[in-house]
């Protein structure tokens, strides 16, 4: 499985000279599975550039797992080239709702007055459905979705492909509902992340910022590190960077995270636009 990050910024796209190193695109991760299948995690602004690359090849099937429908995770769909070209077959999964279909919920953004073109006008064949409650197969991978702690219905995903595991929890506040010393099974997302080779996890805030934003649905960097330790993760990828965070600030904060996981994990990484990791 090849993991390619097309966007790791949280909340709001943040282009500019201060963020050019780690990038300003909102969440989108491409997984190239062992059998060649393309599985995409979230549709933030990073999916625009991914789409441009995908349409260089012949139309085919694409699979997209949406963690939730906050704007920074779906705002790229209006410029995701395969959706706007005939011949492509897209299958979307997202968080369940007892009141509206996933298509109807995504259409709230992809419709006037928020967007000039409606989803129903997209030439591609697009199916939308609630993520299954049990693990399901996509290409050579098994995908598992679980509801996790964030504002509103939100999923985390675990993707296992040929024995290697990526876990994706871009928006997650596990320590809102658990103490740092709690039994792991009472920590949101623990079972999903357990033993992962790579965990891309919400690391939006500093400790000081978190104190003022408890309950906003995001983690401090040290909480992300503590969670990855509790789950026995092999490597943590800091993800969903605050839009106000410059490259220099991110690097300065890195040492705090590395300290927490030292001696137990591979050194953490700061996810950035263009990052490619081979899990094999």
């Amino acid at each position, binding site marked *: 499985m090849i993991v390619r990050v097309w966007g790791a910024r949280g909340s709001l796209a943040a282009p500019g000279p201060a963020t050019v190193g780690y990038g300003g695109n909102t969440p989108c991760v491409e997984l190239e599975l062992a059998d060649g299948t393309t599985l995409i995690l979230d549709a933030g602004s990073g999916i625009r550039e991914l789409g441009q690359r995908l349409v260089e090849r012949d139309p085919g099937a694409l699979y997209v797992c949406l963690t939730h429908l906050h704007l920074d995770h779906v705002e790229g769909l209006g410029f995701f080239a395969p959706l706007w070209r005939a011949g492509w077959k897209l299958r979307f999964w997202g968080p*369940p709702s*007892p009141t509206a279909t996933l298509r109807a919920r995504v259409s709230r953004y992809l419709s006037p007055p928020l967007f000039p073109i409606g989803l129903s006008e997209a030439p591609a064949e697009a199916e939308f459905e609630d993520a299954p*409650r049990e693990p399901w197969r996509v290409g050579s991978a098994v995908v598992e979705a*679980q*509801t*996790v*702690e964030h504002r509103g219905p939100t999923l985390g995903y675990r993707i296992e492909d040929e024995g290697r595991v990526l876990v994706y929890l871009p928006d997650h506040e596990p320590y*809102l*509902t*658990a103490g740092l010393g709690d039994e*792991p*099974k*009472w*920590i*949101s997302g*623990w*079972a*999903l992340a*357990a*033993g992962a080779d790579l965990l891309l996890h919400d690391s939006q805030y500093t400790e000081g910022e978190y104190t003022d934003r408890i309950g906003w649905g995001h983690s401090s960097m040290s909480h992300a590190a503590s969670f990855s330790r509790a789950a*026995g993760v092999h490597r943590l990828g800091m993800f969903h960077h605050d839009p106000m965070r410059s490259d220099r600030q991110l690097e300065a904060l890195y040492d705090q995270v590395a300290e927490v996981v030292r001696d137990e994990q591979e050194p953490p990484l700061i996810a950035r636009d263009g990052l490619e990791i081979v899990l094999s």
Partner: protein
Amino acid sequence: MERRQPDLVLIVARSFATKLATPTLIIDANGDLVYFNDAAAEVLGSSYLDVGALDASRWQELFQPRRLSDEEPLTAEQTPGGVALLERRPVHDSFAFRGLDGREREITVTAFPLFSHPDEVVGVMSIFWELPPAP
């Protein structure tokens, strides 16, 4: 590593209960007791830290719930929490039990099922009050 954990709804319910001053008890979808808060500990006669999680038959055996009207023993399924779980509806009722400190008590309970999906109950939250002794 076994990757099993309670549904998020149960995790959040437990977290909510830890912050409540009202006696609150939570059972999971199997009827097993998975948490009660400090306020509940006063009524139940022991703390959750001391008791820990209990399967349905064990907590029934420990607390010996009984009907108020005739002192007939109640099975776990006949307590308000059990009815809420089996019939997937809120229940309000009173019953007697023996606290873990050995003291007999009467309580009134409101129990309601916790739905994670419209068709899936992951547990029951019960809030309760000790009834004042009969004059």
